[in-house]
């Protein structure tokens, strides 16, 4: 039993949902108790998807447990097939259904549906979300691949891009950027999967000359199987940062039999010059603590160290599956990797390292905020802010531009704050001014509004009970109302009269 106040990864069936939701023509029937449907809101609220995830839940209750939950599951599969007519179906159990051992796979196969039905065995008490995504994608690929069609003579070399899912950190834009990159290099993209792919697309996976593993967390297992089965080699270099993107291009070019020399001479990122420009000098040796999934943590540590001149003082991941890779990378910076999924321990490690910058997940953002350290978010688990409206990839040369901004802007703010602190007592400075990039909001508040009425004790107490985010407005409105009505002392009655006045 593990005491958990917050988890970096959800249970494995959430990973399966990320694959199912990313694809088209796939439906997932999940044997799960009432309440597990909360997972839908991750996709509809955090990622702002405009469709429900393609998931049917059995939502069994206690009264069903005495009866026949197996029949309930079979009915759910049959109904879902009838209603959604998917090209392939995933079936599985969430943690509670795993305990009642109804064998969703066997039950669904017994229905003899005319489509591939893929049973998922995702041990909910051992494994987590990324494993669930990886295993689901691997099983789907195995179930859907067709025979290999050889490339026609004279046709361009081609690749598949594997790994992007729903609810992935910047996956939408990374796919666009990497697609643009390899196509410009002269490689055709055969299939991108799971994001946007259908089961019919998965059938064409063997046609490509090689695979690109964009996120090892979700795609490595499938890529290894495709290599074993069809001899497709794969690229396992996440093109995050200028150096990694160059390495990626070289590896892709090698597998495609293309000379990338000219391409690499022509294509670059502004990061290269920005980082060399003298105003970046102050970044030298800034200490940075990096924590996230393995792909992003390792890549961002490299960008920080080699491309911005920071000093990596901490590197870690919550993904135990990739502990080896992260440990190896950490060794290169002369530090011990932190492999840990308890955010309190991560907080302690950050506190001990006292870095100038934290690169982490949303949780590290909050830790850093508490500790007063600048921070940038570089990895899942995702938050609604990690789905920006603008184009904002992490990968490729454009991604490196994004990274320069992402990794330096929090520090500029830090520098500015530092200066403000230094000159705070200067008569020309306003002590309460916010950093300039935050506008002049704080400074404006300084101009104290003349208070016309006084608050009596009861009203003042009542005001404090109003949630803080509307309290200011309530105070202003009430005082305005009191001024209008020529009321000198604001009482409870005034407070509520004003509330009613402004409501009507």
């Amino acid at each position, binding site marked *: 039993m593990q*005491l*958990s106040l*917050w988890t970096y990864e959800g*249970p494995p069936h959430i990973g399966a949902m990320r694959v199912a939701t990313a694809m088209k023509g796939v439906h997932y029937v999940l044997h799960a108790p009432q309440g597990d449907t909360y997972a839908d809101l991750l996709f509809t609220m955090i990622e702002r998807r405009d469709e*429900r995830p393609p998931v049917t839940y059995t939502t069994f*209750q206690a009264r069903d447990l005495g009866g026949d939950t197996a029949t309930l599951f079979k009915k759910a599969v049959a109904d879902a097939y009838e209603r959604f007519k998917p090209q392939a179906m995933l079936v599985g159990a969430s*943690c509670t259904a795993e305990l009642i051992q109804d064998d969703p796979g066997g039950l669904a196969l017994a229905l003899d549906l005319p489509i591939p039905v893929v049973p998922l065995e995702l041990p909910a*008490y051992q494994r987590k979300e990324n494993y669930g995504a990886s295993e689901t994608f691997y099983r789907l690929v195995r179930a859907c691949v067709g025979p290999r069609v050889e490339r026609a003579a004279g046709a361009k070399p081609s690749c598949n891009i594997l790994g992007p899912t729903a609810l992935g950190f910047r996956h939408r834009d990374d796919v666009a950027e990497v697609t643009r990159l390899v196509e410009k290099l002269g490689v055709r993209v055969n299939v991108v999967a799971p994001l946007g792919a259908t089961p019919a697309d998965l059938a064409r996976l063997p046609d490509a000359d090689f695979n690109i593993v964009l996120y090892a967390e979700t795609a490595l297992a499938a890529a290894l199987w495709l290599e074993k089965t069809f001899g497709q080699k794969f690229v396992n270099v996440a093109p995050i940062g200028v150096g990694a993107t160059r390495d990626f291009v070289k590896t892709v070019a090698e597998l495609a039999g293309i000379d990338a020399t000219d391409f690499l001479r022509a294509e670059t990122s502004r990061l290269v010059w920005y980082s060399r420009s003298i105003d970046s000098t102050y970044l030298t040796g800034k200490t940075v603590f990096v924590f996230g999934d393995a792909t992003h943590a390792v890549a961002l540590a490299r960008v920080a160290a080699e491309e911005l001149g920071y000093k990596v003082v901490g590197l870690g991941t919550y993904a135990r599956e990739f502990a080896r890779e992260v440990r190896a990378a950490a060794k290169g910076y002369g530090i011990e990797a932190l492999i840990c999924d308890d955010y309190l321990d991560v907080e302690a490690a950050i506190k001990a390292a006292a870095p100038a910058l934290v690169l982490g997940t949303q949780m590290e953002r909050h830790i850093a905020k508490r500790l007063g350290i600048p921070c940038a978010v570089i990895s899942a688990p995702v938050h609604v802010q990690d789905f920006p409206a603008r184009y904002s990839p992490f990968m490729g040369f454009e991604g490196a531009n994004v990274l320069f901004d992402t990794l330096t802007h929090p520090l500029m703010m830090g520098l500015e704050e530092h200066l403000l602190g230094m000159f705070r007592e200067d008569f020309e400075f306003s002590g309460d001014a916010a950093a300039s990039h935050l506008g002049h909001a704080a400074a404006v508040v300084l101009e104290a509004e003349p208070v016309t009425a006084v608050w009596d004790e009861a009203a003042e107490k009542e005001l404090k009970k109003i949630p803080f985010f509307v309290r200011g407005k309530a105070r202003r409105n009430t005082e305005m109302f009191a001024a209008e009505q020529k009321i000198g002392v604001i009482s409870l009655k005034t407070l*509520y009269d004003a*509330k009613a006045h402004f409501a009507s």
Partner: protein
Amino acid sequence: MNEISAITVEPAGCSDAPVLKERGQREVFCGLTGIVWLHRRIQDAFFLVVGSRTCAHLLQSAAGVMIFAEPRFATAIIDERDLAGLADANDELDRVVTRLVERRPEIKLLFLVGSCPSEVIKLDLSRAALRLGRKFGADLRVLSYSGSGIETTFTEGEDACLASLVPVLPASDAAQLMVVGTVAEIVEDQFRRYFSELGIHDVGFLPPRRAGELPAVGKGTFFLLAQPFLANTALELERRGAERIAAPFPLGVEGTLAWFEAAAQKFGISQARCRAVLDAPAERARQALARCRITLAGRKVFFFPDSQLEIPMARFLARELGMTLSEVGTPFLHREHLAEELALLPRGTFLSEGQDVERQLDRCDEEKPDLVVCGMGLANPLEARGFTTKWSIELVFTPVQGFEQAADLAELFARPLRRRALLKV
């Protein structure tokens, strides 16, 4: 005569209305979600869910940012080793609780909260609570309840929590009033003031703000429900000798007025006193509703089942804001507690209980309501299909009860419609 009381009411309302009972996929939260507002209410209580990674993930997804401020809830995640043998799971639980108590010595009340997995493996949390209660003695009270999805739907988690508190309430047969169900502090204080002005001075609230302020209960206790989902808590209170005052729920002006009056009647308060205390705030609240009425009157609203607040909400929207009711779905319909509400609901309202979400979405498509009240998982997909939605979880997080909040409640429904009218993209 003002516009609200001008609406004519069919005498029988929906008291004997037929109800469509559905048993398909239910797109609702489980009872664990109640922890999110219960821990805000009881400020020295800690909620320890004994469950799976899914439970922990649900809580952090539903609680959003609250998680980041050293929350007073957590999950003891059951793993493989615990499943191997139950004796081990009990030892593990004791170890986890001990660590927790060391970390948070200010906690006075610990709830062990059962989940789907703990129920299925039959982990006896009531025995664990007794054992741990003995271990920590007077400093920490340990109770247990189940918030599992197999037993509780969303707000029923609060019912289970409060029901677990009733047996430990102090005993007193003195004449007193108890208000049952979580309300915001500001609402509690308003209620206390009105009761006091009416002449009812001995008023307790369950749950209280702090574990040490549990109200007494006994033969002289009358209780008013502030929330419509407290079936088991009411039974437990009745078992301790208390009597429920039947009333509509304090949502909207009409509901709040009837709620106070029901208590006043029970305590022998005169009509004149009621008028003197309640008429002015009721009138003020009616005026405050006027702005929202412009937006809402004549619009059709469709309720997906969620919090069990649907029927009182529908009553308020129909009678005080002039909305037309399409389907009113509720996860569970407690006919006795909702008798006064059903009588007020416009005759012919289509009621449904339980859910088959796909079929209900089909009905919603056919009905083409102007406003859909639904859970967060459905809201954006419905918006994308052109519906205007109000996601219902806000209704349990926002102070909405009482006269002073009536307009706030109306505003929750009006804002999505106003916003839609505003946007030109």
